């Protein structure tokens, strides 16, 4: 495996994980807002 291939692989892995974390953060913020505003479902 060449260094360029390894760079692309690592960038792709990191981008995927970052996307997952950002998605999780958005969901978490949503539920924090619900909890803080005291809304009951």
């Amino acid at each position, binding site marked *: *495996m*060449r*260094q360029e291939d*390894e*760079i692309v692989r*690592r*960038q792709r*892995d*990191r981008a995927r*994980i970052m996307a997952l974390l950002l998605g999780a953060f958005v969901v*978490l913020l949503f*539920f*924090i807002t*619900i*909890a*803080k505003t005291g809304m009951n479902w």
Partner: protein
Amino acid sequence: MPAIEMTNPAALPADWRDILALTKPRVMSLVVFTALCGLLAAPAMPPFVLGFTAILCIALAAGACGALNQWYEADLDGKMRRTAKRPLPAGRMDRQSALHFGVGLGGFSIVLMGLATNWLAATLLAASILFYVLIYTVWLKPRTPQNIVIGGAAGAFPPLIGWVAATGEVSTLSLLLFVIIFLWTPPHFWALSLFVRSDYAAAGIPMLPVVKGFAVTRRQIFLYSLPMAAAAIAPWPLGLAGLTYGICAIVLNFVFLVLAARVLANGATDADQMEPEKHLFAYSVFYLFALFTVLVVDRWVA
């Protein structure tokens, strides 16, 4: 896996596994556990998502501390067998990335804690990060054999922060949880430092066995175990915990003191003959998990 033709591994973007390793996940597990116990032992229970976020913030802050610690100690880590394979000394990651990651993660955890729970918890979280990085890692650790004693305060913050995140205030039991971990840290780390003394000596870190020798360290382990046991049992006579906790705390601390006494009686200087020290180190981890678990169980059952 095929070999990679690399001229400079640190020039590559860091692998996510190395970024994760930077946060010291094993240390984080103990931090998360004690914080969770602090939160669960508190008299007020926040909504699940806020409790979850508080624990998440404490875990992220612990990860930030791990990253900043490894950033600062990269050269020292390279000199010790136990730490030489970490991402920075092994050259798999550059130092600046570790610094940016640690600062970013720490700042993020503080702001999120403040927004989700309360700003007293966020302030304590900020204080714990600054204490660990500046007071312990930068100032005390390379300068004094008492580094573990005062530095232990950094590891004692999580249950206090968990409690404050739930209640918004500091109370007697939360302070006792802080004191228990504060007094538990020296015997725990000194037991370890006895049988990895050569590593610390090679790195020039003035751990107690390196500076004062084996006998003094063993005596200090036993002496610190006594107030630790008193603090651990105290919630029961003070009426802050029930009989279940009291009995379990007495048994757990009795075993701890017996093992500490065995360490005191051991005269070995060779790591291979330090079974009592290894037993005490292993037991000290179990001890903390068990004591805090019993506290929560006692609180919820009573």
